[in-house]
């Protein structure tokens, strides 16, 4: 066998009597490779070429023989090593050595898993790719058996794959539950480290919403909180934290108000301030394009039935109030009241003020509003009042 190899792969090209003593042409990576030639000509050098690169070696003499020790960086690399024995500028001998992966050394594993997160449901998968190598980083022979393992909750699976074109690979499909898959592999007794694949829940399915509020009055001050049920996907997994749920509110005027909530353990909360006038809200929440909630209907009752408007200081001070809330208590500070001023039917100015201690005062300065007849419109808390022909 070696003899045939020799005759095929090696030949002398110039007529210098030369014999290759080393008969072995296939080596394992990492083996010590020494080429011994018998020749009269001592001034020869060896030109080596492999995928690693090119080198020219000087000869060591041993009696009548010349010896070349191939350097480690050639011998540890799997593949074909061409060599030429060169005398002056002429090639006097050529040969080929094949280096194969060293299966006697400890197998090293290079593993890639991607993507690192997938969604539950069994349709989505990730892929584990293993490149087993010898300790010189040469990929091992094809058809090396690779044990692929993964664990999810109570399930532990193990399959055997055979390496092909240097690699072995396996698809790992998600399960119906969300969680974390741990995966590893083993070749020739060498185990890989642990790899984690995050399994997120699948897309949410429709859910319910509810609300909490301190009272049902439109006082413009308290907060109504909308809460979703625990939002799950079709496999009963709670959806990922942080999923944005948008609550849309359609009020009596057809305007669309909105508030957001991000889920924690599947529950999202959205908040809105009570309206300051009687209103009816239709509320529906969405995970846009994916899931929607039931519809809620809320009614806010008028909290202030009426308020007084007094003209004082020769009508130059308009005192609105006391603004009373549903139990007759003073309205909390901040209720918005606007006063529109007209003179002889012509609009002049809008003054907007917020209440303090249940009252709002509008001052109509003499400097700006000369004596005459004015109309005033007072609006706020869903109440409109008009005062015509007020003489200043």
């Amino acid at each position, binding site marked *: 066998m070696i003899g045939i190899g020799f005759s095929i792969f090696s030949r002398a090209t110039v007529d210098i009597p030369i014999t290759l003593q080393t008969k072995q042409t296939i080596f394992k990576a990492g083996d010590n490779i020494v080429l011994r030639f018998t020749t009269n000509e001592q001034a020869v050098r060896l030109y080596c070429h492999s995928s690693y690169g090119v080198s020219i070696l000087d000869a060591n003499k041993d009696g009548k023989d010349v010896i070349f020790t191939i350097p480690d960086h050639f011998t540890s690399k799997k593949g074909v090593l061409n060599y030429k024995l060169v005398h002056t500028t002429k090639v006097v001998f050529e040969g080929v050595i094949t280096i194969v992966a060293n299966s006697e050394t400890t197998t090293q594993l290079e593993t*890639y*898993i*991607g*993507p*690192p*997160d997938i*969604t539950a449901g069994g349709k989505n998968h990730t892929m584990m790719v293993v490149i087993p190598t010898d300790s010189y980083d040469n990929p091992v022979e094809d058809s090396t058996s690779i044990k692929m393992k993964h664990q999810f909750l109570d399930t532990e699976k193990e399959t055997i794959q055979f390496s092909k074109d240097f690699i072995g690979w396996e698809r790992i499909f998600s399960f119906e539950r969300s969680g974390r898959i741990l995966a590893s592999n083993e070749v020739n007794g060498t185990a890989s480290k642990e*790899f*984690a694949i995050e399994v*997120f*829940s699948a*897309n*949410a399915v429709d859910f319910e919403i509810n609300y909490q509020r*301190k009272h049902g009055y439109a006082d413009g*001050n*308290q*907060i109504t909180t909308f809460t979703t049920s625990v939002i799950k996907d079709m496999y009963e997994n709670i*959806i*990922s*934290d*942080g*999923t*944005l749920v*948008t609550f*849309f509110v359609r009020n009596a*005027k*057809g*305007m*669309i*108000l*909105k*508030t*957001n909530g*991000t*889920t*924690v353990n599947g529950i999202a*909360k*959205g*908040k*809105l*301030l009570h*309206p300051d006038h009687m209103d009816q809200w239709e509320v529906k929440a*969405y*995970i*846009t*394009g*994916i899931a*929607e909630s039931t519809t809620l209907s809320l009614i806010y009752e008028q909290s202030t039935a009426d308020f007084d408007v007094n003209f004082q200081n020769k009508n130059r001070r308009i005192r609105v109030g006391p603004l009373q809330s549903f139990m007759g208590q003073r309205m*909390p*500070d*901040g209720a918005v009241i606007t006063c529109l001023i007209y003179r002889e039917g012509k609009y002049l100015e809008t003054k907007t*003020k*917020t*209440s*303090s201690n249940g009252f709002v005062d509008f001052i109509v*300065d003499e*400097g*700006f509003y000369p004596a005459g007849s004015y109309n005033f419109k007072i609006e706020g808390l869903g109440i409109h009042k008009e005062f015509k022909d007020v003489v200043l």
Partner: protein
Amino acid sequence: MISEKYVIEIDKQTTNKYLISALCIGIAFHGTSIFFTLESTYDALIHLFFADHYANSWFEPWNYKWYTGFTVMGYPPLVHQSIALFSYIGGLKFGLFTVAIIAVILFITGVYRFALLITSNRTVAGYAAILAVFSSSFLETLHIFGQLPSILGISVLMHALPDIYLWIKTGRYRYLLTAYSLLAVTVTSHHVTPIFGMVFFIFPLIGMVIMDAAREKVTTIKEVTFSVFFKTFLKLFWRIVGFGIGSLFLIITCILPYWINTKNNPITQVPIPHGSRDNYLEVTSSGLVFFLIPWGILLCILPYIYYRYYSKRYLFFGLSITILTILGTGGTTPIPIKILGENAFNILTLDRFTLWASIMSLPIFGEFVFRFVEGDLKQCIQDRYGSAYHKILGGCLISGFIFVSIFTMSLGYFRPSQPQKIKMLPIVNFLNQDQHDHWRFLPLGFGDQMAWLSTQTNAMTVDGNYHSARRLPELTTRAVERLENSKYRGVEGIGSLQQFLTVPEKYNLKYVFSNDKFYDPILYFCGWQRLRQLENGIMVWEKLNIPPLSTILPKDEVPLFQKLLWGTIPVLTVLIAFLINIQQIWQRTIRSKKLRTSEYLFFKNDYTRFRNKLLGFSHLWVALLILVFSIGMYSFYVKNTSQISPINVVKAYYDALDFKEYERAYSYIDPTSHKTKDQYMLEISVTDGLLSSYAKLDEIKISILTRTDSLAKVKVDTYWITPLERVDKTYFHEIVKYEGNWYIKPLGYDLDIPPDQFFSNVEPQFYNHGRRRITSEQTAHEDVLKQPVLEVLNAKLLMHDDNYAIIGELQNVDNVPADVVIKGTLYTDLNAPLATYNVKHQMNHKLMPKEVTSFRINFEGTAWDDSSLKAPNTFNPDEFTTIELEERPSLFNLQCSGNVATTDLYKGLSINDLEINDQDLSGVLFNTGLQEVTIPQLLISYYNQEKQLIWVDHHYIREGVKPQRKQFFKYKIKDLSGVEVVSDQMDFVFINGLPNADISEKVVPNRNIIHELSSLLPIEGKGVKYLKIETNSYVGNPN
């Protein structure tokens, strides 16, 4: 007229005690004070940066650190190379201070030699040297501007003047050689000095030589007629020409690479405004810095200086100083622009002319002081007004002189031109860690200290501090000196900065160091995120999805001979000059040879009869100066007296608010309004937002609506520069008069009381470890998170108002929060790319899982790229430069990439109320969360009848929203009847490099489009039927 006696008298070559004192005082004074001033000057740190370049790569002119690479051949190298050489001994700063001290010595001795040349009197020259030490223009140039090369250049030029004189006068080649050697040093230290020095110093000097030579031919100066002068000129012609040709040769060859570079890379930039070109009467601060300070006390004796320089011998100096004085007035008169031409006027900084004029005045100032202290002027004054008056006058003169000196030195202390000194070490460490220097960085709000940062790190920045070397069109087409201080350049500056922040991947710009919170909002809205605050208080901002710099960067190669010339000639000129001059000094010291008395010493002035008329005129002049000064002060007082009229008080009030001087602002509030100071301060302290925290008042227009004797109602239109856009806001104030002063009535404030005293919220928070193992190796494969999957729901290319834009909606369909970058490219029918741009601020860059955002890409060109178009004087907030497209685009490509985001995910803003009144949308925002939203932004999407998206607009709300509080907003609905859909073909939409269609099919296969459509707000707009409003919140101080 001072008659000149032709006296031949050989001075005793004794050591000049005045000169020695001047040197001692000068070195002690400047040598001490530079340690406190030089580093905070405008230029010193830039020179230090250049020096650092030479210290590390002496012969390689290419510097990668600034402006994506530039050549240092744009500035004469001597000073930088000298600092670099000294840095080998004791570090860069040692080099800087050493060179500064050398410059001081050369300046004092230079003034001495120049004064001796002019006045032929060693005592007078000694006086001039002492005065030079404290000369305000010199103090300003060194301690405020830090212009070392300028100082060195003019000093060495003054050293060269005696030799030039002697060469032309005597024709001895030794003098020519010395003159050349010194001129060469001047050329290599500063390029402008020898060119203008030739005109303003050497030409008059030549005139003086000819005058002296002519004087020797006749018996009295009066006999020097034009014909005599001309004949002498012809006699000396060849010497003059010889010198001229030689000088020209030196100017060209000594810095030949500089000229080649200037020719190859001409300065085609938009001129950068400089205070020295202002009208000093309008911009009084410029007048102070560029006129009053450099002239200083010299202004008082200006008549004497002119009188002396217009005497026959100095006639040409007289002409020269006149032109210098006029040129130094900048834009105050139209003459400088006519003399220099518009081009040169806009490139040159005109303060240097005043500097030269004041230096030229020093010999005469020395002469004046000499005559005042111990000469005929003293006698004259004592005879006429008595000795007490002389003493008082002397006291005033000295006080004035010292006052101007102290004032100049302390200018940098009271009005700092630089931000406070920044500790660079944390930044340098940050850049060295974890391969952060593989990207470019951008400092904001660093002032000239950015140069010092650049010297200390290998990391590169897109910005730079030597604006003549700028190369990127984004910078050269705008009058923006640096991006770093763009807020001082108004909209042009902010516009330039926004371009860099929107498309940072073009420049591999990943980190921004912010020393000024003013820039924070624009960073946020352009999709940047806060990384952390360094221990020196600098906030680090980071942009995801930026590729690192390539290992090999492009550079402009120059031939080897240029590199060799540049690296050797400057130092050689110094060595040669030193050898030649040391020989002279050595000979003088050991008296080995009988020295020839310098020719110019034969032309003595007569200091015995001071003209009474001149004295009288000088008095008049000073009186006039005092009068003008007083009028100036008075008008300043009247203009700035705040409560004299309703307009003044409003102006003063807004000025106080702008500078955050709330105590002063309170003093303008109506005292009868029962608003206590505590209450006022409290109301101010609870307001936050774009206007109150990030705005600089740009313009204010006040109009009085109604006014009585004691009441007024004013409308105040304010315009504020904010990092995002120019904001206008109109206020109405009622003004009352009370005991002769006008006061503002306080505006109402929000009385609203939130319902919950104490409340809690549950929100998810996120953390990404990044590299889990502490190693400098490449990040482990399993530590790299998957890019979040996004989906473009719809996208189209539109044309609106002749602008192309890509709009659309995008959803984060992954389970983790995402930072989103969208890049759009326009193509022609034939698939030729036309333009590329990223989404700037018309989107929400940070998306929670399943969150949707609308987006719009505007295709911005480089503003005012076409030099024929002038930048507009006024700013339109919505204006941006439309890109010039060669063809009509018909297709578009969108590349969207997501990266896992963990910060800036605040979603607590809700829309609590809405009202539509014709085309006005008004509403109430309510903050439901726990963070204070500093700047709320609304994204408004417009839909047509078929509920198809047709436009996306944004609107910033000027006031912030605190937790559980409301904020009212108003928005004008746009007219979109002109929108034309160019393409809605979504074939080329990619997410993280994968086709969008595949993702759509796989991730949300059964998308329910009703969700989007049923939540639209119906309106009756022009070309618009539905609206969608999204909120985006910038949280200034996350807790």
